[in-house]
């Protein structure tokens, strides 16, 4: 089995767990919805303010949801020593890393589709202008989030680590995703979408860098 095949097998396994357990759909998605409603309430009912802040709130909801999604992706492995077996399996550790990231990318993209729909309804955000740019921003941003999450999710799920360590590491490291994602979304919805190219480029660069740095480093996190 090639490294790619191994990664795909792990991604498929994680997605099967999600399809059968419905953790993201049943818990994290409602949580993201709750967040959006809370944001709306905290900012008041002014239409123009809500519309202006919608891209930022949208990405914040995605960021928090992704933190929870990774907790879940590794928590499932924590039961019955499944993670040890996964690490002991004669496969490339980088495949484990990328496979778990890929599964979460799929889960998060599904979640984001619903969350964007909610934002359209709740905050009146026009998403029809440049759907390709918008989709690009979400795909590239989600890959970046997923890779960072996959790397440090392994760390957070080790015995006796503290819960808050994971968001404390992931949120600041993902600043570029937040900034570029929000800006690209803003341009794709209310601004000139043609200017979003450099932001998409930044997201792509982030994805490439964290994947390139994370893949060889993952093995050190799970060595024992």
């Amino acid at each position: 089995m090639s490294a790619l095949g191994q990664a795909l097998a792990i991604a498929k396994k994680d997605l099967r767990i999600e399809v059968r357990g419905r953790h993201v759909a049943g818990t994290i998605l409602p949580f993201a919805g709750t967040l959006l409603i809370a944001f709306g309430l905290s900012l008041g009912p002014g239409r123009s303010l809500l519309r202006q802040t919608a891209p930022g709130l949208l990405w914040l909801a995605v960021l928090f949801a992704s933190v929870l999604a990774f907790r879940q992706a590794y928590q499932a492995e924590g039961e019955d020593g499944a993670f040890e077996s996964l690490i002991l399996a004669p496969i490339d550790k980088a495949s484990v890393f990328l496979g778990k990231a890929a599964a979460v990318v799929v889960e998060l993209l599904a979640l984001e589709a619903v969350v964007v729909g909610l934002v359209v309804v709740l905050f009146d955000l026009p998403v029809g202008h440049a759907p390709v740019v918008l989709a690009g921003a979400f795909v590239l941003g989600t890959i970046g989030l997923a890779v960072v999450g996959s790397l440090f999710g392994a760390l957070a799920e080790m015995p006796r680590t503290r819960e808050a360590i994971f968001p404390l590491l992931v949120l600041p490291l993902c600043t570029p995703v937040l900034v570029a994602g929000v800006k690209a979304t803003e341009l794709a919805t209310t601004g000139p979408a043609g200017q979003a190219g450099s932001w998409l480029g930044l997201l792509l660069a982030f994805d490439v860098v964290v994947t390139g740095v994370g893949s060889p480093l993952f093995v050190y996190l799970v060595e024992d």
Partner: protein
Amino acid sequence: MSTAERLMSSLTARRGERVLAWLAVGAVGVSAVLSLVASPPDAEQGGLIRLMYVHVPAAWVAYLAFAVVFVASVAYLRTRKTRWDRVAAASAEVGVLFTALTIVLGSIWAKPVWGTWWTWDPRLTTTAILLVIYVGYLAVRRLPDNPARRARWAAVVGIVGFVDVPIVHLSVRWWRSLHQAPARLIGVPDVSGSMGVALGVGFIAFTLVYLYFMALRLRVGRLEERVVAEALSPRIGQPAEALMEEPARG
């Protein structure tokens, strides 16, 4: 022993530490005289410019310290020698201290000059994020787990954090430039003549302080390790020295 390791161990010997301490105190004294008395007030900012002689060197030390964390983290993962882990730990602590100092000094400077404690300037924002990233690094270091594993995790965070900083900076810079033009910032002061000398001495003084803190923290790190080794040695049935020299493997 490589040259870097030999240099490190001579710095952390008691004698080297004392010499460093006196050098640092002397340099800070000279720097204080130069920046407070000998250098002229700035044409625009007057005496406030004197904050530059501590703010900019503090920022330099912060970045230097995190670069050292990065190098030591890579070296640790390659060699698995605990001394590299100690270097990374020491440098991260000193780095967080100086990053916080940079932000505080910058705020004190910004209030009278820009009229605000904080502005979302790219450099400020990057520094704030840098602080949070390395506070996270220190949190990983405090996890109660076996030392070898903790060292590996910390090294990974130290590497990823450092690689991430340029992208963070770039993203924040673009983000800022697309907003409305920033409130008129007083440009970089013209640093030349005695001001340049004062700033240069400030750099040297702060770097010496950094080295002194490193030496102290490295010695504490070694002592901590010795305490653990001495507690373990009767149970394992080996002398403490043998436990300490063993390169920690996971």
